[in-house]
């Protein structure tokens, strides 16, 4: 049901000792959290899409990703079947879709001066 065991295991990785325990004996650690076969297979294969299919929630999976040395760009590349360089290039390319009046810093007119704000205090 919605990947509870897998997410519970990933939530435990907030604790450094648990991360170390997973690294030193992944099989035993997965067994301790009662992962389903589907969940266990997805973790063993480092298959993020399969982890999601098995009910993994990306907010918890991100902690497992950290153990595996994967950042969010690596995850994106894995999930979309791109190289990491291509995935990053795709992100940067999205900038072209941002109009000049949307992108960048825009400073507004302050309704009132600094002094007046302080006087209200």
């Amino acid at each position, binding site marked *: 049901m919605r990947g509870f065991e897998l997410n519970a295991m990933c939530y435990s990785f907030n604790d450094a000792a648990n991360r170390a325990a997973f690294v030193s004996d992944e099989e035993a650690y997965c067994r301790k959290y009662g992962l389903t076969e589907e969940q266990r297979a997805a973790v063993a294969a480092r298959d993020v899409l399969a982890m999601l299919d098995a009910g993994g929630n990306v907010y918890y999976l991100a902690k497992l990703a950290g153990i595996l040395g994967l950042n*969010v760009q690596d995850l994106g590349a894995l999930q979309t079947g791109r190289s990491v360089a291509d995935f990053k290039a795709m992100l940067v390319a999205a900038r072209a879709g941002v109009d000049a009046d949307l992108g960048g810093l*825009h400073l507004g007119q*302050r309704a009132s001066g600094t002094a007046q704000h302080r006087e209200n*205090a």
Partner: protein
Amino acid sequence: MMAQIVGGYFTSHVPAIGGAIQRGDQQAEYWSPFFDGFPSVRQWLGDVSPDVAVVFYNDHGLNFFLDAMPTFAVGAAARYDNADEGWGLPVYKSFEGHPNLSWHVIETLVEAEFDITTCQKMMVDHALSIPFELAWPDAEAWPVKLVPIAINTVQFPLPSPRRCFALGQAVGRALRSWKGDERIVVMGTGGLSHQLEGARAGFMNPEYDRFCLDHLADDPAALTRHSAEEVAELAGTQGVEILNWIAARGALGDAPLAMVMRNYHVPISNTAAATVVLEPA
């Protein structure tokens, strides 16, 4: 004597921002378009000199787990600590709470039929720490006390934009009826559009982000006409963090507000980043 809401500060809170700060990358080509928005945020905060921050944010699996996932959680602690979020990164500074104001907010919300979870002890994550680091980069201790309000953006079903806006409106009424002389800044953290998971990983949507930024000051009710599912479609499954912005905007009251600054940049990490300051017109 009544507390005063001095305005609202909204920003993305991507963990990678913390990494950039640690490395001193603020002026690197990749990061400067984002960090260049903050001098004006800091100047405004100096001008309005708040004593308290009421922050709408979402927990990323540090304090809350699926064994008990609140739709809305309000902190009532004297102190809030950060902790290892799973990556062994440096732990952020602690926050001083404002339990009396928290309880006033909690009592007002329950009276107004918001079914909140009350947290007399809680940890807070980068969604609170990064906006503070950006606002007060040189602070030894945070210059404001904290009232944290967490919104579930993690596990469906999510509260609707309309419900989050109503939550914010009720919090605003609580703050304006607080019999203290505090100057309160409201914050909304997270977003804008991004999606970390699945075949659509890397999705961003400047069109929807523009819609949000264009209506935030003058017509925030426009943001409440989508369902939570529609927001996930429009903003990406992590872009639903806009719910935090919507709630914060609700707390700032029903009148149109003045836009003090607004910055939008694509991308930082996998995210369309934005920073906004609003104040009473």
